């Protein structure tokens, strides 16, 4: 019954090794290599933003994107930022020193003559989390559901958003519809001031309308993205948003001048709290084009026209041009030009009695007429495994319209719009390799 084996044994070692490799690795050797990059993506960035003599901000962002099923993603973003420094309080400079009460009402501070009065109490830590679930409904329709929460010591913002993207025209055109709803709560230091009431001289207390107040913001967006050719695509969005509730800045005040054209602050109650409408509807048209030239450089340019029923109109042009070099290096200059007109109720100062006749007024420089210009350069390096490291440096200047000719009396010699200059430094790191994720997991396990 024995089987005679006479033929020479075959060499099977290599085939056996390949089979064993498949058995042990849990997948073919190709599998472990490919699955990695498509599954996890971690992006992180650290931003340092510093204004000359004003606020400084350090902001860290961590973004984790994971493919949980085919084409279905969970995206989570964690942001922490620390803000320190001072911000214009709305009052105009004067030829004498000025004294203001802190928002808490527990102390006061004095600003020297001929300087823009700043509120020095800003020191804030913000933590924000947003999570998005992005899933396909069919081969041409996908949806995104998002939620976000952001917490500062005096501000809480929560929101949800939903958007749908439908591909048509052989996937050359994508129609987007998005809506979002945000509910924000102010818990300002010292309570919510009553608009147009006087900022009392310490130790008197300001008139307040409760400790907390809130607002809701609803947005809707329609977009069309069109592939123009193999190298070009464009996007056009129309969006409309409505804010309701407390839209005033509880820390901003206005200087009230004497009625005599002297430009002097009035003798009693020289400062009043600002007061804005409790509703705002804004709209914007946004266009963006991305084009790749034959030398593989990419131009990314956008234009936004924004207008609202407060009378603000703005134009924003943003331009980024990416030069690719051999070996994964790239350089990307960035230019941005922003020009805005003032809100109808923007006033640099009030004159005595005006607070009783006007419905709204604010001296917040952000509602005034100004131009912001940004110039920056980014350097990036893409590793062969898909990771990327990048740095950028930018300079931002903000310049208001010179209104000294309209100013009265002694104010003609003052810089009424608080021009600003800021520097931005950012470092970023993106990873999407399995090894690194394992490393990080191991680190957290420790």
């Amino acid at each position, binding site marked *: 019954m024995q089987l005679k084996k006479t033929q*020479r*044994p075959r060499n099977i070692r290599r085939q*056996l090794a390949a089979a064993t490799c498949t058995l*042990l690795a*849990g997948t073919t050797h190709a599998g472990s290599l490919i699955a990695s990059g498509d599954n996890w993506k971690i992006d992180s960035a650290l931003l340092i933003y510093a204004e000359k003599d004003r606020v400084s901000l350090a902001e860290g962002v961590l973004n984790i994107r994971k493919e949980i099923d085919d084409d279905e993603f969970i995206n989570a973003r964690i942001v922490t930022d620390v803000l320190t420094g001072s911000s214009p309080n709305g009052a105009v400079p004067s030829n004498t020193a000025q004294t203001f009460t802190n928002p808490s009402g527990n102390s006061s501070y004095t600003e020297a003559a001929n300087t823009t009065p700043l509120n020095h109490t800003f020191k804030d830590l913000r933590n924000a989390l947003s999570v998005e679930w992005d899933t396909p409904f069919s081969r041409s329709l996908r949806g995104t559901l998002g939620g976000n929460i952001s917490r500062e010591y005096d501000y809480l913002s929560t929101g949800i958003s939903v958007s749908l993207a439908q591909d048509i025209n052989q996937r050359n055109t994508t129609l987007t519809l998005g809506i979002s709803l945000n509910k924000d709560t102010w818990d300002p230091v010292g309570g919510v001031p009553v608009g147009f009431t006087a900022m009392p001289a310490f130790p008197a207390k300001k008139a307040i309308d409760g400790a907390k107040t809130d607002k809701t913001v609803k947005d809707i967006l329609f977009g069309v993205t069109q592939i123009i050719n193999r190298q070009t695509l464009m996007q056009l969005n129309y969006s409309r948003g409505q804010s309701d509730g407390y839209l005033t800045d509880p820390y901003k005040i206005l200087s009230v001048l004497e009625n005599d054209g002297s430009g002097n602050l009035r003798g009693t109650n020289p400062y009043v709290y600002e007061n804005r409408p409790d509703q705002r509807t804004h709209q914007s048209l946004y266009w963006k084009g991305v084009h790749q030239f034959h030398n593989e450089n990419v131009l990314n340019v956008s234009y936004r026209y924004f207008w609202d029923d407060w009378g603000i109109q703005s134009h924003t042009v943003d331009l980024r041009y990416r030069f690719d070099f051999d070996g994964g290096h790239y350089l990307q200059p960035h230019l941005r030009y922003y020009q805005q007109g003032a809100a109808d109720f923007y006033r640099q100062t009030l004159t005595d009695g005006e607070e009783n006749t006007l419905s709204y007024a604010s001296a917040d420089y952000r509602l005034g007429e100004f131009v912001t210009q940004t110039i920056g350069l980014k350097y990036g390096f893409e590793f062969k495994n898909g990771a990327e490291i990048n740095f950028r440096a930018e300079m931002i200047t903000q310049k208001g319209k010179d209104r000294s000719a309209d100013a009265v009396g002694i104010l003609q010699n003052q810089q009424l719009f608080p021009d600003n200059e800021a520097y931005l430094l950012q470092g970023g790191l993106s990873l999407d390799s399995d090894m690194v994720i*394992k490393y990080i997991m191991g680190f957290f396990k420790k």
Partner: protein
Amino acid sequence: MPGLERKADYFVGHFDAMASNCEVLIDTEDENLAQEITRLAAAEVCRIEQKYSRYRDDNVLHQINQGAITRVDEETARLLDYAQQLYQLSEGQFDVTSGVLRQAWHFDGSDKIPTTARIDTLLPLIGWGKIQWHHPHIQLAKGMEIDFGGIGKEYAADRAALNISTFIAGQSDTHAQNTAALVNLGGDLAVTGPRKNGHGWQIGVTSGTSTLSLPAVDFSLKQGGVATSGDANRYLEKDGVRYGHVLDPRTGWPVEGAPAAVTVIAASCTDAGMLSTMALLHGPAAEDFLREQSVPYWCQWHNREIVERTPYP
């Protein structure tokens, strides 16, 4: 419950599984790390034992062996694919369906040789080709059974070593990342890599027969695995003929003139195990087969009662 023992510059973790004394040698002086690695290895080996033990009635193997159509999980599917490849590579000599022969053969040193008629009743129940295996579904004919006994221990050793490697790679400090380990499941062993000092692990092979007092063979292993097949103490003897325990699934009878035991070093413990098993199945040509594979091996023959070996390259 795994135990841990401190040696000169490494730890040894102990646990019992797969009817063997199992140990893990861990090249570290960090007791917590050694503990964790031992626990990891024990967990993996026990998991595989439970999943593929033929003595249990609550696992996937039992379900398959009931003859029902079974949709199997990925791991089982890989094992079945592997079994199929082994069947093809060995031209039918290695067959995971041959376990039913145990019903006729009891290698207890006695002279109870089964009758040809008895063997012939079992032969229709043997043969990979009779199985319906279409990933991920399997169905066996009534009376057939699958037994991963010939693969299980080696597979478990490799899986445990692989899990340890993954765990080590995930460690954050460099000390832990340099840790190497050796998994030894009753003589089937796998290493995760060379020791910290860059040298291999010193391994001794002793003769399988108690009557012999041959010097142990020492060698150093940096990568891969080692496995031994065969057991000189399992045989039947009748009318002066010795029936070895290595059965040819195609005939149902022992392979004539097979070595008592074969030890092989290969890229993985599983590879080593399959090569040593196939060598046994080649009977007197076992060494021809091993030389053709150009792997280091040790071969122990009954008749000559010596261990021949190929020097470790």
